[in-house]
């Protein structure tokens, strides 16, 4: 492998009303899947693969909870940036 590996991490607070329920979780997973990097999302002590809908739903993350987004791979920085923006935009939900 001659691709440069990088690691990125950031924390974001969930702002949308329903938290990481079906629709927001779906958006998170579909967005994470656009990147080559391995992406993990952590809520409290639970860690999930951000590309697994079951894993993300099991976090049960709610409004006000902190999500730690951690990526590893060539496009790790971009992945973490894009995902944190999605969370901060409240998953584009109208409220």
């Amino acid at each position: 492998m001659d691709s440069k590996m990088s690691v990125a991490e950031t924390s974001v607070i969930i702002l949308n009303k329903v938290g990481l329920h079906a629709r927001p979780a779906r958006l998170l997973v579909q967005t994470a899947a656009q990147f080559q990097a391995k992406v993990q999302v952590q809520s409290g002590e639970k860690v999930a693969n951000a590309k697994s809908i079951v894993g993300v739903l099991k976090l049960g993350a709610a409004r006000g909870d902190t999500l730690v987004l951690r990526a590893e791979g060539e496009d790790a920085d971009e992945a973490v940036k894009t995902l944190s923006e999605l969370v901060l935009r409240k998953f584009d939900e109208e409220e």
Partner: protein
Amino acid sequence: MTVGLVIVSHSSRLAEGVAELAGQMAQGKVAIAVAGGTSDGGLGTSVDKIVSALHEVDGPEGILVLLDLGSAVMATEMAVEAFAQASQHPVVISPAPLVEGAVIAAVEASIGNSLQEVAEAAASAYTLPKVHERNG
């Protein structure tokens, strides 16, 4: 091309509703077909309808079938057997609960996962707590 989904239910309206929900999750990226009710529009399952639905979403990535209750399994097994005469593509019958399974499968298929990955994710729908217990 992604894994295709077939929704089998005793009720055509239930099948349509589940497909609508799963379709919203898949964002148009996944072929979803329904086989609900009997051929005369009553409650029950129809092998012919299931075979047609399998052909509708047939593709090289294979098909995951999600179903509601009891005899739907037998009808689906017969349909899969008939379908196999015409198509080489793999079909998996999911043990998942219908709604959760379909929604999970739709998301997993939408990101291009393999039939095995989609089937495993759907099967693990049982492990999702429906009501999260939260402390504080």
